[in-house]
């Protein structure tokens, strides 16, 4: 076991996969330039020393182009790990991801495969509206894409490895406040969880969620940063004698629906916490699943704790208001218990 930040864990995951399979390569902006950043959040720092610039491939600022290159390379036998500096830039690459990567297998009647990974940092971090969005729901909506969102170092490395080995396109969302990037790329106010990561090869299977904290009174679902908000809320609630169960789905598509439904059937109450804004979001979809398949086990309405329907604001006081706080999660859970 080694103690690692998420950035370090992903880096080691990439390193091990690149050593294991010569078809794996990284493609992105500022990822391997000597003296450069190693990606926007240092994940690929130093990898070009070991693998060279053909396999840590720096591109022009061409998000649509690099996504398309990744799709083509994947179809012809390589296994690209592409990344964008901020998930907001994925909008530039939507045609390649949504119309090509997600649909090639289907349109070819199951013959063509696109084994690529697209990594993208999400989360509001005092950068204003265009470097702050949480885009998970956009991609969950696209048939043909798998979507993962690790919140711990163990999961980040294990899911990265699963994503690389998967024969389908996988979008991996990472949270800027969870990376633990060092040096000038350190994020102010970062949570930067450090966790134990096995030294031997392991994977975290795509499609399996995990109970982060068991409880019997209310289920709280959170992913990425909001998983930590959920855990902090559970801690607060425990002081009041409320036992909250915290679920981290880890994979968003395909969703570990059984884990969610079992928990709700046990607690009878559900709070879903997400950093994205409310309307058309991921939380609404989870609420619908529970309403559809576990309605008669519910003892209270399902609560969504999301950002308001506004673009992410810049001023830290507004941004803190925007991102779901521990207090809002606690208040939602209390309300469901009539407290």
């Amino acid at each position, binding site marked *: 076991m080694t103690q690692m930040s998420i950035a370090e864990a992903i880096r080691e995951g990439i390193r091990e996969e690149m050593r294991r399979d010569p078809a794996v390569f990284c493609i992105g902006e500022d990822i391997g330039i000597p003296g450069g950043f190693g990606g926007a959040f240092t994940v690929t720092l130093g990898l070009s020393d070991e693998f060279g610039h053909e396999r840590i491939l720096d591109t022009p600022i061409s998000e649509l182009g690099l996504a398309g290159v990744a799709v083509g390379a994947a179809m012809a036998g390589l296994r690209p790990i592409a990344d964008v500096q901020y998930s907001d830039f994925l909008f530039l690459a939507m045609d390649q991801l949504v119309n090509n990567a997600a649909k090639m*297998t289907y349109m070819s009647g199951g013959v063509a495969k696109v084994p690529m990974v697209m990594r993208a940092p999400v989360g509001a971090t005092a950068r204003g509206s265009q470097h702050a969005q949480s885009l998970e729901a956009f991609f969950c909506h696209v048939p043909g894409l798998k979507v993962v969102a690790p919140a711990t170092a163990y999961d980040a490395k294990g899911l990265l490895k699963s994503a690389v080995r998967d024969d389908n396109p996988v979008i991996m969302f990472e949270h800027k406040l969870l990376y633990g990037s060092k040096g000038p790329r350190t994020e102010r106010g970062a949570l930067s969880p450090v966790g134990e990561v096995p030294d031997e090869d392991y994977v975290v299977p795509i499609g399996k969620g995990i109970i982060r904290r068991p409880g019997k009174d209310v289920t709280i679902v959170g992913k990425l940063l909001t998983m930590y908000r959920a855990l902090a809320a559970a801690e607060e609630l425990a002081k009041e004698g409320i036992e909250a169960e915290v679920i981290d789905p880890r994979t968003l598509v395909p969703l570990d629906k059984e884990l969610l439904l079992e928990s709700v059937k046990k607690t009878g109450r559900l709070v879903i916490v997400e950093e994205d804004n409310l309307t058309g979001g991921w939380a609404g979809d989870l609420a619908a699943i529970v309403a*559809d398949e576990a309605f008669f086990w519910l003892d209270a309405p399902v609560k969504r704790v999301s950002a308001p329907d506004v673009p992410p604001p810049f001023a830290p006081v507004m941004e803190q208001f925007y991102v779901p706080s521990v207090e809002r999660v606690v208040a939602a859970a209390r309300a469901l218990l009539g407290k």
Partner: protein
Amino acid sequence: MADSQLQLSLYRSMLTIRRFEERCNNLFMQGKIPSTLHLYIGQEAVAAGVCAHLTADDYATSTHRPHGHSIAKGVSLRSIMAELYAKRTGCCKGKGGSMHVGDMTVGMIPAIAIVGGNIPLTTGLALACKRLGQGRVAVGFMGDGATNEGAFHEGLNMAAIWDLPAVFVVENNLYAASTPVGVTFKIQDIAQRAASYGMASDICDGMDVLAVYEAAGRAIARARAGGGPTLLECKTYRHCGHSRSDPRTYRPKEEETDWATRDAILRMAAHLKEAGLVTGESLAQIEQEVMAAVDDAVAFAESSPSPAPEEALEDVFWGEGPVPFAAAASGGVR
């Protein structure tokens, strides 16, 4: 110059595309083929001349107008026709349709019907060709309109900076749907754009299959030899409209008549006769064989089964079973 055997095969390739699509048009009018059709009639020399240099190990990408490229690249007439008929035996098992025909086993990527979307993807295919080092090339076909997409700029620039074995073939047929090139280009030749990427370029008569063959040969040889990508502009013309609902009222009649006299198939037939490579009888023989192949494709398509509706749930993820649907019907009641 292509040898006589090859010249005959170029002629046959063009004729196959022409007769196949004329039949498609016919079948569409009879209501046997659902959806729309984007026909390639008039531009056959480009697909035939370029693909004659490719093997099944090379890649080609196409557009919403992919029948010609697919036929020239070796996708079977049967599987294309069955796809147009929306049959299970189609090259996409009925999930693609006219605008997505392709066949990975012959290197024909399922066609990409978003204008310009195939360009960066072609660069990616070429990147893999170079990295895997098997001397393969990737060819991306596009219309003049696609060269005004941002994807063209990003895709060509990356192919150039990495010296990839790619050939970008622009079929300049003077119109993007109904909009003439004069409205959307300030330059005379689209091939000029290659200079801004430091990329080789060439221009050829896209209504002359031998000219296309020669120019494509140079570009593909350069790519295979590690000399990097080429932007090849083929000046061509489509005898039919953009799609089946297009009455072509935006085109001058004299222009259409003029280009009709330059028809690539008529010219090649005349050339073959003049050069003494064929007789009228052998041309008739080729015609018969081509028609028989088209008849066979139609018969195959008509006798093939339709997919079951729920086959829509299959092939979403590679190597995985159907996606769940309506599973909640039984699970929600206590």
